[in-house]
């Protein structure tokens, strides 16, 4: 296959047969209770140097509970997929957990920009769309997918994509390599104990992330009966056999919201942004993560029931989210 143009960025790629072997051996077909605490799930399924993917955003249905636990357990040298990220990539870097980023959108604020300028974090350029397409390729079990994005741009030059001539129509087309993260982190509205999971509302790529990832941790605002899954199979976003751990995590997306359940906490984001601008993220990390033993303790002692109730109260739009 003649390659017309080739990006120079470092990228993760694992040959589909190696991924297949993993999926055969490690993804359990048994119906077993996979509920774990966030601490246990991260201990067992997130290792130093893992490539980590996160679904949706810090503002909406993001698995912030799992990000906080990764920081608490001081994972190191993670390669993070910033495909639609606003806050959690910054937290991971500020906490010293992450040394490489695949850039779709790196996040708001200057912290990360400085880390890249000063060479402490290595980046490879992609786009939100092509990183998401790479998850689709990884989840389909094919080595690449074609796209007409990237072409002509410097983003292409510093990515890992390759441009070839389409053998059917003859025009140049970009190929992006399959991405199979070591860990996929996905927050959902509801899951059963086996890992069958439901998200409501639009999404970035919950299913693609679950399919592509070697290890999948689901955090769920609600645990539902397995029987409920079987009564309405059209609502299942992710089937259980892709899932390794189910973490029961009410307000797991906090300070982001979960549509139909609770709104995001604007005051919290304002506090975060102020500290971020002042270079005081250590204060933030200490207050909300390191000084508390768990997310539950954080929600209870740092946020408080009154605020949590208020965030639930604000979630008045429920149409379509059940």
């Amino acid at each position: 296959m003649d390659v017309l143009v080739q990006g120079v960025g470092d990228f993760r790629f694992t040959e589909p047969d190696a991924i297949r072997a993993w999926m055969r051996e490690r993804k359990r077909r048994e119906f077993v209770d996979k509920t774990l605490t966030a601490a246990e799930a991260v201990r067992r399924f997130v290792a130093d140097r893992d490539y980590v993917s996160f679904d949706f955003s810090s503002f909406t249905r993001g698995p912030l509970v799992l990000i906080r636990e990764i920081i608490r357990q001081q994972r190191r040298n993670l390669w993070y997929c910033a495909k639609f990220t606003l806050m959690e990539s910054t937290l991971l870097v500020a906490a010293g957990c992450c040394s490489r980023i695949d850039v779709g959108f790196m996040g708001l604020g200057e912290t990360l920009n400085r880390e890249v300028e000063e060479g402490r974090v290595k980046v490879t350029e992609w786009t939100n769309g092509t990183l998401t397409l790479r998850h689709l390729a990884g989840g389909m079990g094919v080595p690449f997918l074609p796209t007409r994005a990237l072409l002509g741009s410097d983003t292409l030059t510093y990515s890992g994509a390759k441009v070839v001539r389409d053998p059917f129509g003859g025009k140049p087309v970009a190929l992006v390599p399959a991405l199979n993260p070591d860990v996929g982190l996905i927050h959902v509205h509801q899951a059963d104990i086996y890992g069958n999971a439901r998200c409501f509302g639009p999404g970035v790529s919950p299913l693609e992330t679950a399919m592509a990832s070697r290890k999948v941790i689901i955090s769920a605002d609600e645990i539902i009966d397995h029987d409920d899954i079987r009564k309405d199979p059209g609502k299942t976003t992710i089937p259980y056999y892709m899932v390794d751990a189910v973490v029961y995590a009410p307000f797991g997306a906090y300070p982001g919201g979960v549509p139909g359940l609770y709104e995001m906490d604007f005051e919290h984001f304002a506090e975060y942004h102020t500290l971020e601008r002042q270079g005081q993220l250590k204060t933030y990390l200490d207050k909300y993560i390191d000084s508390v033993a768990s997310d539950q303790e954080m929600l209870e002692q740092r946020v408080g029931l009154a605020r949590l109730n208020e965030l639930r109260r604000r979630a008045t739009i429920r149409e379509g989210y059940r």
Partner: protein
Amino acid sequence: MTREFTEAEVMIALCARLLEDQKTAFIGFGMPQVAAILAQRIQAPQLVQVFEFGAIGPTPLTPFVRNTMGGPSNCYRSIAWTNMNTIFAQAQLGLIDYGVLGATQIDLYGNINSTMLGADYARPKKRFPGSGGANEVASYCWQTIIIMMHERRRFVPRVDFITSPGYLDGTPSARERAGLPAGTGPWRVVTSKALFGFDPDSRMMTLLGVLQGLPPEQVLAEMDFKPLVAAAVEELDPPSAQELRILREEIDPARTIIGRTGKV
């Protein structure tokens, strides 16, 4: 008559006026969101907004919630909720008419930089958050509108990094030769002072209009390259009383978006 307004309000109003009713529009984060809502409230009630996280055709609730991206007010009364691969596929297929984007730096040929400043990629003088979905929007949508602060450092002869493609080096069919979809490219650049298009032959940015009361020379002086100038440069109405009322009373009373930057 004097009427005070912010640069953000100018950009938002100028952009909103460009959006035709009953067209599809890929809407980026921040100012484009507010412009699209304003358009829906005035001339384009059935503008079909699409977002990169997969919402199609919402009628976002106001007051606009800053940083909302996928939440219930943002996705209110959509016609479909999909996901990122599905919505970019539809744009790639040619179903999305407009793309509306912000940018950090732009050049004579409409190439957009939101990645980094400096001559050496490995040692950026200044790093930015990167493409997001802008590269896809600029590659796929039929007519891309870019919203920019009108500042000299943002209008450069050649961007330091092409995050999202404009007309590349400006040579004939440069986009098509790269493999990009035929007939696409930057269509309008909306700034806090002016409106630009692109010359169909040379692909150079072309001054089409200036904000009422500003001399074109002043607008051109605040750019680091010389765009073409249309035979008749239009005088652009400042934000109208109706536009300002809707922006200030209905859409963004907290002024989180419309309050940005000083008064014009």
